[in-house]
């Protein structure tokens, strides 16, 4: 049986009907990983033996694939989430040999739902980046065009889903790190409302922004993964104590009467015309489905990059202070004294982007600059949040591009950090506001380069986001032409 490009829900059907065994499914992915990972570098750690062992438990009857939609389903996990007994590097040499003694809550919940983990995926170091070029273990190649970036920081997870190296994956999004690589690789990626998924065991980059979420082959799969991961966790005091809705019940192919806000500031001059075309066509499809399109304004959009790149590095400078060689991770040998050990360990273990952001963050929090930068940015964050609150008075969801350009060539922005930061302009404001957002494939620019459609919703309204995404996806299911993978 040809197992290629199977979604989680389709694979689940086959497993339940015993048309495919869990071992066959795991072997399918492990074979593909063996063949393609050397080129793509999507996985940093492959846990093949363990995965086959667990598959065996399903196939000899000890465990039942019928128990849950994720039972026996092989997944990949971004290397920023702690997995007990399995190396977790965060894409950094400073954690090259770190083996966590516990599972992140999101991982634990997926395990409880019966999922099998194939391994840990590559990422920008400590989730800092938009291209997966900042990994301490080499960049990831875009399966659609290996000379181009897969996006970041969840580049490994996005590439793994796109290249069928797993049935689905977990990523994290702080300023766009799920949505943008999903867009760049032509898969579905969702960032839930801040607090919807526990951050316990999610190695912290920016604590007021980080969120774990799914990367998947379709919207239904994304909903299945999110359902399993979401929910209040007493071990994460920032997790939202609200009931989790039934996300699958939200998947309705009709959006008749749904108000779709189109933010004028998200269609910028200088943006790639092919991205613009794909997104506008997608909006046209939504209108054809009965969605009521109306223009809205998010006037502070242009300040999002500046606000984010003050706030996130500030939080990072604090969160990354723990990497000091004392309790875990790299320790520089032969240090003269404790301070020397800290300095040498960190200088040796961190890459350039991480150092840049730590210094930027330290600067904006330092005495004399705190008010002018950090406090100011926090006030601008309020204005950005208010933009969305006001916009959602006029519409149910906001529909826009994910990035102003299709996937760019490896190396193109690597030397110019500010250019790289500016490419995040469309994903940062929703992160600052804490609202949920999805990227769903909506077309291809020339060269077979994927373009994603971004759909944003009010706080805790993942149901609206999923509904709009699903309706659009189902409407173009037979007409959206996917070029073959380039690998």
């Amino acid at each position, binding site marked *: 049986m040809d197992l290629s490009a199977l979604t989680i829900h389709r694979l689940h059907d086959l497993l339940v009907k015993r048309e495919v065994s869990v071992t066959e499914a795991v072997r399918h992915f492990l074979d593909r990983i063996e063949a393609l990972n050397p080129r793509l570098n999507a996985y940093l750690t492959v846990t093949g033996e363990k995965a086959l062992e667990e598959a065996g438990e399903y196939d000899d009857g000890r465990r039942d694939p019928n128990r849950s939609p994720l039972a026996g389903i092989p997944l990949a996990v971004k290397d920023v989430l702690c997995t007990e007994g399995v190396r977790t590097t965060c894409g950094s040499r400073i954690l090259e040999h770190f083996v966590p003694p516990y599972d992140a809550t999101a991982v634990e919940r997926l395990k409880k739902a019966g999922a099998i983990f194939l391994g840990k995926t590559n990422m920008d170091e400590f989730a800092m980046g938009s291209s997966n070029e900042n990994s301490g273990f080499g960049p990831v190649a875009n399966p659609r065009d290996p000379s181009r970036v897969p996006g970041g920081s969840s580049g490994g997870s996005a590439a793994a889903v796109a290249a069928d190296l797993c049935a689905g994956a977990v990523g994290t999004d702080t300023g766009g790190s799920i949505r943008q690589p999903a867009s760049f690789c032509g898969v579905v990626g969702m960032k839930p409302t801040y607090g919807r998924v526990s951050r316990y065991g999610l190695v912290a980059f920016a604590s007021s922004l980080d969120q774990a979420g799914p990367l998947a082959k379709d919207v239904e799969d994304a909903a299945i993964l999110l359902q399993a991961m979401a929910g209040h966790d007493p071990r994460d005091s920032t997790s939202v104590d609200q009931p989790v809705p039934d996300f699958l019940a939200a998947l309705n192919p009709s959006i008749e009467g749904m108000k779709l806000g189109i933010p004028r500031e998200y269609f910028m001059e200088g943006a790639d015309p092919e991205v613009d075309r794909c997104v506008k066509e997608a909006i046209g499809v939504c209108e054809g489905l009965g969605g009521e399109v109306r223009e809205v304004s998010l006037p502070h959009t242009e300040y999002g990059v500046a606000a984010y790149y003050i706030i996130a590095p500030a939080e990072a400078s604090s969160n990354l202070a723990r990497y000091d060689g004392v309790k875990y991770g790299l320790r520089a040998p032969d240090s003269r*004294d404790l301070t020397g050990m800290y300095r040498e360990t960190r200088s040796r273990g961190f890459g350039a982007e991480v150092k840049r952001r730590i210094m930027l963050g330290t600067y904006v929090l330092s005495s004399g600059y705190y008010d002018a930068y950090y406090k100011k940015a926090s*006030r*601008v964050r309020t204005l950005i949040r208010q933009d969305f609150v006001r916009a959602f008075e006029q519409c149910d969801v906001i529909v826009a591009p994910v990035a102003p350009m299709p996937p760019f060539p490896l190396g193109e922005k690597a030397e110019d950090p500010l250019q790289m930061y500016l490419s995040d302009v469309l994903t940062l404001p929703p992160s600052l506001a804490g609202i949920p957002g999805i990227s769903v494939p909506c077309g291809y620019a020339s060269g077979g380069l994927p373009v994603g459609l971004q759909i944003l919703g009010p706080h805790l309204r993942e149901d609206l986001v999923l509904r709009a995404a699903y309706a659009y996806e189902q409407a173009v299911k037979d007409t959206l032409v996917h070029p073959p993978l380039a690998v």
Partner: protein
Amino acid sequence: MSRKITREEVRHVALLSRLSLDESEEAHFTEQLDRILEYMDKLGELDTREVPPTTHSVPMQNVFKDDEVRPSLDREQVLRNAPRSDGVSFIVPKVF
């Protein structure tokens, strides 16, 4: 051209964040941080005097829990990743 950040300041910030930079890194980072901070001036276009800061994007206040002892990791698990340990503590170089 007025600089937003000097080499001195970069050196100071590196010290505060326990990073050591060589000459060329120092020059390189100074230039990059200077350009980034110059871009940040953009926020000065907005009058935020009456705007409260946001530290938390979702409404939430004072999440406390009872001071109860709960199961945690045992010592062996905690020391497993230690670069140097005597089985009881983490061993580090002398402070001074």
